[in-house]
């Protein structure tokens, strides 16, 4: 037990209940408005911060900072606990209009200031291990970014603690506000850039301060408390902030508001070239797309050293300052064209004069001129990003399908002579470990094969990584897919070629009986064979020479393992995780094995910072940091509150930890699952956040109409729904995949209704019926917030290590624990 329940406390419970049970929430009209507007603004701020980090740094670093700053929410509850022992009747004083208005103003000021500080602070993650001052910058960024979330958390926590009978309404205001905040950036980013939108959304809560008048009661209570300020002063202050923000936005202050990419990003590097400029910038929730014109852009991965001509002129579009897509100036196809000197052109040799080609493009851009050079009759290009699809369509004047490739294939019955997938991957294994990508899962590979004609060929080109990792995984994925489709000798269908920096994997629908064409091409272009039917060691590693033919040796070893049925042992013993990925674990860039971390550390030069860019290690660092902060926030109350006045009970705390973790597990499960449907993590995040938060809000509102005894039933119903989802979600999403875009959105939202609505019940019901003191509610809020952050970080690792479906098991376990506590402990105590 974390506290004791004395007779004195029982009396104070009665007194508190008498005092507050009939307090109408709308007697304090500022509170619901503030909760709604602050939740809206804070969630929009969070989504926009993710955008800012995505541009200025890299995704997994933003993951680290934003996770930590979200503790600001939980810190609001801790703050209330600390003042609980020091200020009598704080809940009444603080929840009156004056203080809430002040907190709202503080939110706006800190949101704008923290963004400007983040934008201006010379924080350089690469210098962290080198310059101690960088740690100070990082801490400053953390603290500043946590402030607006702290003030939001404080107001929401105040609302819960001060109006227990209206918990459902507060929950509704908070959740629906958050849902609106999740959608707002998606709607406005096409018109307003990230920096300016942060300023605009930070101003939204001020509308409650400026336009809402105080009534007599509020003035009376405000005048007595520590936050007493003339309402007019606050209104003038707010108008001043709006005016200052308007000046900031209207003067188009690039220094303070414009978000610049890291100097290490490709866009920054390119812009340092002479006569290079950004000719077009398009912003959206999917990213910022900068198109650059420069005479210095030359992209030709996998080009043979035998090419002596001149590359065609190119332009490039960067997404968030990186992930370039190159557009070539159309040039008439000829034998001398650069495309015929590339590794991936080898695939076209196996099926000369193809009638139709499917190009699935994720970055790069060289596959389009290559396909054109083959003299194909019809090219179908699939590009997921609408902005890039538009650019490609406009540049080449050819139709481009703007869709998730899996959705397109699920609907299409067409067969192709060649399917060429362009996704070059990362040059640094582990850097994109958290990236969820379905292009190379065994399920996707099977889908590609089923869309090939009888003589069809699949071509995949990637960067050549050493230690061999990506090439092994792809080879294994192709092998298993072919096996599942009934191929007798899958290895007879596969060939791999490489040069000094890239490799191309070619899969033929028919067994490769004659590989002479490929061998001659490799010889002519000075390429090396890595794997081919009938290949031997003396045929490899001839032009691009390693100390040993590492890639050949490993793939050969794997092929033997498959033949002898010992592939599991191979994957277990290989120092990196190179096993094929499925739709349930679609992380093609994740290679880390925790049990071999020491070996990896040694392999990469025994230097800490070479591992620093590994996304998976960042997850662990974030989890440890988050755990530390959670313990600190939860324990802080114990250090600051005298033991005899503590009012927390361990089961209560555990209940709210469970509910917080469960909620976040479900949210993360759907976000990750829906990336399969929408093909884009940002769209998935927006749809799931908006859906789940809105439906939970409705659930919270409805919770006011049901009795406390129904809490176990609500939890049991939720657990049943989640168990059902465990088995049903994947088949349902597979079906949804083939539907049109609008139906996919609608059905995905519908699927969120049952869990979303039911998840809206456990928190407000327990807040309302199972807790007795304001300080208990504040503490419950803190526990809920801490568990949310920890669960979100844990979800990332669960998905990486075990799979996405397993996240739901975490959710079910958490809600089971809540059910056990709700059923046997708290109800009894009540």
């Amino acid at each position, binding site marked *: 037990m974390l506290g004791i329940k004395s007779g004195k406390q029982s009396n104070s419970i009665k007194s508190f209940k008498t005092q507050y049970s009939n307090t109408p929430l709308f007697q304090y009209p500022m509170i619901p408005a503030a909760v709604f507007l602050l939740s809206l603004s804070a969630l929009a701020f969070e989504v926009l911060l993710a955008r800012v980090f995505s541009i200025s740094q890299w995704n997994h670093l933003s993951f680290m900072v934003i996770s930590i700053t979200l503790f600001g929410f939980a810190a609001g509850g801790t703050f209330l606990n600390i003042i609980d022992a020091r200020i009598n009747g704080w809940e009444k004083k603080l929840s009156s209009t004056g203080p809430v208005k002040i907190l709202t103003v503080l939110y706006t000021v800190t949101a704008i200031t923290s963004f400007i500080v983040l934008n201006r602070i010379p924080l350089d993650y690469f210098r962290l291990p080198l310059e101690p001052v960088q740690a100070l910058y990082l801490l400053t960024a953390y603290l500043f970014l946590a402030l607006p979330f702290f003030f939001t958390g404080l107001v929401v926590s105040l609302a819960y603690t001060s109006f227990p009978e209206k918990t459902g309404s507060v929950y509704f205001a908070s959740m629906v506000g958050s849902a609106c905040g999740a959608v707002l950036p998606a709607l406005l980013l096409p018109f307003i850039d990230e920096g300016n939108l942060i300023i605009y959304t930070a101003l939204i809560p001020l509308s409650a301060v400026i336009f809402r008048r105080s009534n007599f009661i509020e003035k009376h209570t405000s005048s007595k408390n520590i936050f007493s300020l003339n309402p007019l002063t606050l209104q003038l202050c707010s108008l001043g902030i709006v005016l200052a923000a308007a000046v900031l936005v209207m003067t188009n202050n690039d220094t303070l508001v414009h978000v610049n990419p890291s100097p290490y990003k490709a866009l920054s*590097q390119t812009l340092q070239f002479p006569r290079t400029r950004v000719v077009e910038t398009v912003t959206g929730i999917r990213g910022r797309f900068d198109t650059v014109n420069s005479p210095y852009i030359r992209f030709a991965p996998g080009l043979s050293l*035998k090419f002596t001509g001149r590359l065609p002129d190119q332009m490039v579009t960067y997404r968030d300052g990186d992930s370039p897509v190159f557009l070539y100036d159309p040039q008439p196809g000829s034998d001398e064209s650069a495309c015929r000197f590339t590794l991936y052109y080898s695939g076209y040799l196996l099926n000369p004069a193809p009638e139709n080609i499917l190009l699935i493009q994720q970055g790069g851009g060289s596959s389009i001129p290559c396909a054109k050079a083959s003299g194909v009759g019809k090219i179908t290009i699939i590009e997921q990003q609408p902005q890039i699809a538009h650019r490609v369509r406009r540049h080449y004047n050819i139709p481009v399908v703007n869709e998730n490739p899996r959705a397109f294939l699920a609907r299409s019955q067409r067969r192709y002579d060649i399917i060429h997938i362009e996704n070059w991957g990362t040059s640094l294994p582990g850097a994109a470990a958290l990236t969820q990508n379905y292009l190379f899962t065994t399920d996707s590979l099977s889908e590609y094969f089923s869309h090939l004609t009888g003589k069809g060929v699949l071509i995949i080109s990637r960067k050549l990584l050493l*230690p061999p990792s990506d090439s092994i995984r792809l080879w294994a994925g192709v092998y298993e897919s072919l096996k599942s489709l009934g191929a007798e000798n899958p290895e007879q269908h596969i060939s791999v070629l490489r040069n000094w920096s890239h490799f191309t994997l070619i899969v033929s629908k028919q067994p490769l009986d004659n590989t002479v064409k490929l061998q001659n091409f490799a010889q002519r272009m000075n390429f090396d064979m890595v794997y081919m039917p009938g290949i031997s060691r003396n045929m490899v590693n001839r032009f691009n020479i390693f100390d040993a033919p590492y890639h050949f040796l490993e793939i050969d070893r794997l092929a033997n393992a498959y033949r002898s049925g010992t592939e599991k042992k191979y994957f277990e013993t290989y120092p990196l995780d190179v096993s094929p990925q499925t739709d349930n674990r679609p992380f093609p860039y994740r290679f880390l094995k925790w049990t071999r971390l020491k070996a990896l550390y*040694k392999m*990469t030069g025994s230097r800490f910072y*070479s591992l620093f860019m590994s996304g998976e290690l960042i997850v662990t660092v974030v989890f440890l940091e988050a755990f530390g902060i959670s313990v600190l926030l939860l324990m802080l109350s114990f250090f600051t509150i005298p033991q005899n006045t503590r009012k927390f009970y361990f089961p209560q705390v555990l209940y709210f930890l469970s509910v917080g973790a469960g909620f976040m597990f479900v949210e993360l499960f759907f976000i990750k699952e829906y990336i399969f449907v929408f093909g884009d993590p940002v769209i998935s995040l927006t749809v799931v956040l908006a859906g789940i938060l809105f439906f939970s809000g409705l659930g919270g509102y409805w919770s006011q109409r049901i009795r406390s005894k129904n809490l176990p039933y609500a939890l049991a119903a939720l657990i049943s729904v989640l168990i059902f989802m465990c088995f049903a979600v994947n088949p349902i999403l597979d079906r949804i995949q083939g539907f049109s875009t609008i139906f996919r959105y609608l059905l995905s939202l519908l699927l969120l209704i049952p869990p979303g609505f039911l998840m809206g019940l456990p928190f407000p019901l327990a807040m309302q019926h199972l807790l007795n003191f304001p300080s208990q509610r504040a503490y419950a809020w803190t526990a809920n917030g801490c568990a949310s952050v920890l669960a979100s970080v844990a979800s990332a690792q669960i998905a990486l290590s075990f799979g996405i479906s397993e996240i739901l098991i975490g959710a079910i376990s958490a809600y089971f624990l809540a059910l056990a506590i709700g059923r046997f402990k708290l109800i009894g105590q009540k």
Partner: protein
Amino acid sequence: MKKTSLAATILILFPALLAGQIRDDSLGFKAPREKMVSSQIRRRGISDKKVITAMSEVPRHRFVPKNLVSRAYADHPLPIGQGQTISQPYVVALMTESLGLKGYERILEIGTGSGYQAAILANISKDVYTIEIKKKLCDTASQTLRTMGYTDVKTRHGDGYFGWPDAAPFDCIMITAAIDHIPPPLLKQLKDGGRLILPLGNPFSYQNLSLITKHGTDYRVRQITGVLFVPMTGYALDQK
């Protein structure tokens, strides 16, 4: 006569002393540099005396930003601004040694960066050309090289992709920037039997070096593994 001798001495010795002073550095950095050479360079197998001498003589700290001077001789790359880095000392030494320089070669460096690599090359060969596309970096590096007395190094602000046709052909070309293909003009400017070296990978993580040798119209690319990582067949597989 005495006056003439004195004047001659001053005229000859003083500039020499000054030049020596400029190239030399404070004693405070000599010890870390010696330690760098012994623990990072020699210990990892670099044995070419010319390379060892160059690494021992060139004051690396003069090429790094002031706020990172204390880390100049540490075993890692350092940021030099503009999103660029000065390579890890061992990578500089290995790239230089891999070219197998005798001292008479004409060398072209693509990507001057801080100018440190050019200074190392200039310590071994007198005929060094270096191109930097970023104006700011080019100006700073040229200034540093001049101040330190490396006046023989020819620097140019321009596009390294097309090499330096006026000075071609080259015995050796060194590319110090990440690229996805070898520029055909550079291969053309390489002498028959010439060597081109370039790093692969991320400067902040492990890198592989590739050495390309020209044999008539054919090329051989040799991967010099082990820049910062031990191949899988080495250490890692032994740990099963």
